[in-house]
């Protein structure tokens, strides 16, 4: 049976040339930004040694820059920023709950295992 009451959401993505121009300039801006972040990361990584006192700060900077890059990729390139709020939350919220929990448990257990190994070797 043919349904005429269903909405073809696939057609919602269409836009005209003017809007396209706007989107393209945004894409190029994000490209430049992502490249710059990568260059900065490599520069820091190559110039500051892991034995340096700054290393903890550098680590945090790396993680923040990575999350920034990831945010731009997901929100702009994958268009999640243009989707409905509900969809965005359904994708992101469960993911972050699981991963934060996993990180917490791995660090907690990792510290315990690390101290056991240290006492074993001494």
């Amino acid at each position, binding site marked *: 049976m043919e349904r005429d009451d269903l909405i073809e959401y696939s057609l919602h993505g269409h836009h005209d040339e003017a809007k396209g121009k706007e989107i393209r300039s945004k894409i190029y801006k994000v490209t430049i930004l992502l490249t710059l972040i990568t260059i900065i990361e490599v520069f820091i*990584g190559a110039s500051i040694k892991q034995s340096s006192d700054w290393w903890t700060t550098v680590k945090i900077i790396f993680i923040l820059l990575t999350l920034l890059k990831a945010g731009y990729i997901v929100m702009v390139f994958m268009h999640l920023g243009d989707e409905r709020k509900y969809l965005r939350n359904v994708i992101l919220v469960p*993911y972050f709950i699981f991963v934060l929990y996993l990180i917490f448990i791995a660090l907690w257990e990792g510290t315990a295992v690390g101290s056991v190994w240290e006492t074993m070797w001494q």
Partner: protein
Amino acid sequence: MAGHSAQLDAKTLWGGKESPFQTSYGKLMMWFFLVSDALTFSGLLIAYGFTRHDAQDAWPIGEETFNSMPFLGHGYPLLYVALMTFILIVSSVTMVLAVEAGHRMDRKGVTKWMIATVIGGFFFLGSQAWEWSHFIHGSEFGKIELSDGSVAIVKGHFGEINNFTVLEAGKKHKVGAVIKEDLMHQFQHAAELGHLEAGKIHLADGSVAKINKAHDHDMKLIIKKSGKLYKVGGKEIKGKKAEQLYYESLYAGEKNRVIYGANMKQNEYGPQQYAQFFFFITGFHGFHVFSGVIINILILLGVLSGTYHKRGHYEMVEKTGLYWHFVDLVWVFVFTFFYLL
């Protein structure tokens, strides 16, 4: 959506006219798949972090392990991986441009950008093949177990081996013969088996030859496992002292004092798990890139044959685009956690 629903009669309402996400089924399922795949990669990277957290100083540092460039040699820390990251970002950009062209029903534009994306994907796969080959073959010095039981990785410029002059005849070579081929391979093989002694090599055919080799320069030992004398995180061993310690072990005539490259059991960079994680994480990501390229090619064929144009929308391009961006996204995290930190 309460306002909207009020205008519909009960029959359409129960038929489920409006989707709360206002997205097509295919796109939604692609997102759900990506969430599950993202959890898999998170699990792998967190397992890596856990192992690294335990191993502390014994773990190799990215800029020490990955400092080579094709055609240029050593001394370019992280540059090659940065290049790979850039290639993947660019191919992600061409993909998003293909999606944008699709929204304008610009078939030519979609074709052009899809071809560019496929090419970018192949470039990345090629880079990864080079990286793996380099990782597996390892450096010229290898990782050495010193006489006090400590284990060190070696940096510096390896003096080239010019030839071997045969001193004692074997099954194949006569006395006085000069061997000029496959020198590095024979040297490393003999070193692994403990078939080297002060300036001499015992070849596979039973002959003994003198090693004519240029001097090494700027040698530096970095301790990765503590022994009786040298400790992890202690002072760097450089120059003459480093050369003396290195060759003392290399010429000790014992098996497995030196390790070159990497396999599943051992590697010259650090603990055994390091190479295993390297192969698994970058391998699993590379497999995703490979399947992504294949899917992109299939979609490109669909674009060329006009299937999507007839359908009235290029959503298939958008869906594969999501997958392709995800592959880029994973690489951003692998780059940080595997190479930078």
